[in-house]
């Protein structure tokens, strides 16, 4: 059934079939107000434009960017500083709103839903990995991983807490950091912190993982291990968009998007624009 909505070539390729299965199992339709639709595209951006005003002057951080990302793709977004990568990531993460253009995430037109629904969409379907890890320094590794599960819940989530703890432990096992469960972030190495951040991003079984320079603060060896982990997650069916300067990371992406001065100059699926 689900295969019908996925790209036929991918299903034929075999790897696509695996992805499809995992999407069906791990990322089921979530209720609340937003109904998940099983579509072939995780992201559909059409003419995205974001304009900032600096000192009375308009700066086009993004200018008419259009692209599509299929479910299960590994996408890299590359470009020089100031090219609009982070702005694009903010729009894709529902952390900012486009001035023009349309954006569909997980089948939902982001511009048509309100702030609360955007927050819910972000919480339930999007995972974030940041360059500086974004771990809460006062929480333990386990508490950091469990953190996203606490938002949007009741104040005293006693029943929910057990399953949340189990899920956080499971994810820590997956990133090989179960032994660091009760440590604080400052007791971890950079690579370990990024692994914790990745585990945290997976807590709500997102459909899309957005990573902003995930290897930017790491040495090359540690960066490679993070790249391997991201590849592993992608093989399991997770759609990943990575903003990066790391050529190794950009190279492994099957779909590359290049930006310059807020414009999309190359989309590997469409070749040069």
């Amino acid at each position: 059934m689900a295969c019908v909505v996925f790209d036929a070539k991918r299903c034929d390729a075999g790897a696509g079939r695996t992805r499809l299965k995992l999407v069906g199992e791990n990322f089921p339709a979530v209720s609340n107000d937003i109904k998940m639709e099983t579509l072939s595209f995780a992201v559909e951006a059409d003419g995205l434009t974001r304009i900032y005003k600096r000192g009375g002057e308009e700066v086009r951080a993004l200018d008419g960017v259009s692209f599509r990302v299929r479910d299960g793709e590994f996408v890299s977004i590359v470009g020089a500083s100031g090219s609009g990568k982070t702005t694009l990531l903010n729009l894709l993460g529902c952390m900012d709103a486009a001035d023009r253009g349309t954006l569909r995430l997980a089948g939902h037109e982001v511009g048509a839903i309100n702030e609360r629904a955007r927050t819910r969409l972000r919480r339930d379907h999007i995972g974030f990995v940041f360059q500086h890890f974004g771990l809460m320094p006062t929480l333990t590794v386990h508490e950091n991983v469990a953190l996203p599960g606490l938002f949007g819940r009741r104040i005293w989530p006693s029943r929910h807490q057990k399953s949340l703890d189990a899920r956080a432990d499971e994810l820590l096992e997956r990133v090989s950091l179960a032994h660091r469960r009760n440590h604080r972030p400052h007791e971890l190495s950079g690579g370990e912190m990024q692994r914790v951040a990745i585990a945290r991003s997976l807590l709500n079984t997102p459909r899309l993982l957005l990573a902003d320079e995930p290897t930017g603060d790491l040495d090359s060896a540690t960066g490679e291990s993070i790249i391997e982990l991201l590849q592993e997650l992608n093989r399991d069916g997770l759609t990943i968009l990575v903003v990066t300067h790391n050529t190794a990371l950009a190279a492994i992406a099957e779909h590359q998007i290049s930006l310059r001065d807020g414009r999309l100059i190359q989309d590997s699926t469409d070749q040069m624009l």
Partner: protein
Amino acid sequence: MIWLLSLREWQRRPLRMSISTLGVALAVAALWSLLAFGRGYRDGVQDELDHLGAHVLLAPKGCPYDATSLALHGASWPCYLKAAYLNQVRAVPGVAKAAPVLMNAFIDDSGAQTVYLGVDSNLLALKGGWHLSGRFPTFRGDLLLGADVARKNDWHIGQTVSLPGLNGARGTVSGILAPSQSADDGFIYTRLSDAQTWFQRRGELTHVLVRLRDPDQLDDVVAQLRSCGAGLEMNVVPLSHIFHSIEGLVNATRALLLCIVMVALLVAGAGVSNTLMIAVSERTREIGVMRALGAKHGEIFRVFWAQALQLCGVGAIAGVSIGWTAARETDAWLRAQLPYSPHNSMVHSDWPTTLACILGAMLLGTMAGGLPAWRASCLTPSVAMRARGERA
């Protein structure tokens, strides 16, 4: 978890958090002491006047407050009334009982005071709350001891004792009063005639305690007492008026102090607000991360609001504990400052006052935390993520 996020801030900034909490604690301690003092003082004065058992005090001309204080606490009086006035007082309609008293006091080398009261059996009609063992002074040299006097001197009924301050004079303990937690516990009662002899004040009194048939007729009776023949020679002091005057004076002072305490609370609240503002500024990136992870505006608001409540809650509990622990010292200090203080403790520790202080501090926390929490909750994730400051 929201509470946990707030609680963990104590680990990150222990000094800053402690200083803010200390500010709240000191303000709450001052508020608690002031409220506890107000209740304690009023109850103490009311209790003493009740123990006196009279509605009106007749004293020699002079300050009515001094006269009341002397009658309540016991002391040597500087001037005297003529015992002959008593008949005129008793003749006034509305006077149920008039109990004459001759009071005198001696202070020994160690500073201990012995207060003697010469009285007659009319006093018993005023002291309905007395429980005495033995008998009221009836025969020459009979003594009725206050509970503290008997205990301190280890005197018993039937024992003949030398009277402190009265060279060679001896008396026999005819009765002992049960403890009343009032000034009566420290007095030695004897027959009026014996006291007049010992103190060489024949035909004289220090004051007269008057009980009315109907307390509602107080103003009428006071007017008649003032207009009787002896009225010009004595001070007619309605004790309820004295009580209200003292209460009014104390309340005025309390109101002024309350204003100061309120300013202290506002300053403490501003301190809490400032601490949270700094925390919001420092944790802007963290706020951005939490928003990115799906935290709603309300949840971010609760993180910082909970922190304000924790600060003020802990401060309130610490403040009340300080106030409660230092109640005795506060009482002693107030006694040294006030011209008149009741025998009982003036700082009345009770749960309603404690609860009111804690609730007041929580209200302060709600207000102090409101603005920083609101500012934190209004940050958009993308802006918050770009902020400088501590890395989340």
